[in-house]
């Protein structure tokens, strides 16, 4: 059964009482909240996601807690609770849904060391996956959103999970986080894209989340073979440019983007070595999404 099988009142009631067991990629998250904006966000963006109620197990137990005291009326805030602990400072109540998204990313990146985890978007087409690591502001999510609206399968917008045994990329398909101008860029690029309400004045500026394509969600159990590592860089007015990147330098940039490379020790080094070996590596500068999509369409699978 998917989230969409629940009516909005049923979804809200479920979240408020027993909680929702949501399957996203390899993880089950048990979510609880009585905050309506969060229920609306889940109903809109996670409609195609399967519920995992019958397992009785969750990897993460998260609870978005509304204010209980005077804060209910004066600048209301929201708390993120993880396994009964409060790891973050409260945020304004209006930011509850983005906080859920950020908190879910943190749950995975901080606790799932069965994978090598990179801060990177991952998309797949015709059997090859492109990994796009990038610092904030590089245009990673904008490019990712554009590509998945043009036939690429979304594995993740934020976290690349690499299987220790096989080296394959494990999908963690979740809504795409868009910020500031990129929200309007994607609305113009793909008017049919489903976006959440814009939330202003967050620590990242104005944010909205884009619903992933249903096909990507239904293939969340299908791993992908790494084929390309692309370091994107959005530069206003820039000519679209894809340039080969020396592999040793790509390796070092990948290390910088990893959450748990150090924790994995020599195994992390070997996994990264195998990953870079398997991929063609590029730097990609762009300003025009149509041209960017065309460049990605021309990527050829590496010959190994």
């Amino acid at each position: 059964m998917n989230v969409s099988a629940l009516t909005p009142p049923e979804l809200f009631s479920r979240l408020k009482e027993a909680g929702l067991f949501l399957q996203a990629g390899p993880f089950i998250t048990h979510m609880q909240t009585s905050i309506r904006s969060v229920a609306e966000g889940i109903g809109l963006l996670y409609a195609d996601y399967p519920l995992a109620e019958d397992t009785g197990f969750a990897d993460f137990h998260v609870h978005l807690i509304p204010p209980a005291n005077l804060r209910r009326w004066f600048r209301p805030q929201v708390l993120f609770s993880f396994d009964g602990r409060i790891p973050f400072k409260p945020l304004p109540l209006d930011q509850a849904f983005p906080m859920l998204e950020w908190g879910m990313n943190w749950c995975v990146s901080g606790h799932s060391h069965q994978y090598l985890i990179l801060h990177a978007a991952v998309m797949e087409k015709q059997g090859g996956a492109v990994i796009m690591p990038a610092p904030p502001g590089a245009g990673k999510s904008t490019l990712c959103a554009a590509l998945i609206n043009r036939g690429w399968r979304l594995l993740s917008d934020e976290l690349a999970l690499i299987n220790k045994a096989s080296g394959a990329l494990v999908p963690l398909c979740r809504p795409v986080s868009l910020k500031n101008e990129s929200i309007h860029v994607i609305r113009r690029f793909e008017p049919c894209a489903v976006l959440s309400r814009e939330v202003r004045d967050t620590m990242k500026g104005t944010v909205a989340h884009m619903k992933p394509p249903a096909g990507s969600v239904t293939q969340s159990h299908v791993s992908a073979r790494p084929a390309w590592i692309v370091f994107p860089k959005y530069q206003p007015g820039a000519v679209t440019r894809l340039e080969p990147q020396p592999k040793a330098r790509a390796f070092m940039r990948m290390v910088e983007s990893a959450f748990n490379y150090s924790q994995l020790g020599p195994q992390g080094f070997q996994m990264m070595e195998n990953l870079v070996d398997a991929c063609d590596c590029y730097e990609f500068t762009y300003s025009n999404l149509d041209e960017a999509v065309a460049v990605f369409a021309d990527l050829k699978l590496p010959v190994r």
Partner: protein
Amino acid sequence: MRLNQKWQVAAENELLYHSWDDEFVVYNGATGDTHLLGLVAAQVLLKLQQAPADTVSLAEWIAPLQQIEPDDEFVFFIEQILTDFDSLGIIEHTQL
């Protein structure tokens, strides 16, 4: 620093290497750090893993591989590499 003083890879270090073209990445298991090395620096480290060596003998061994003369400038270059490795805790002086 005396040029005839010998260097060795610090005993506690476990180094893993991988190279692509003329660049190497080296993982130091003792510190968890990963370093990007050019070809000459990698040759210095690989040589020191085989046996302790001083600056001049390292320069004399590596220079032919680079098809250059082991002149003073090259010896100074090797010495700088050794200083960098020392500051990173990768190598140490041998106990004489």
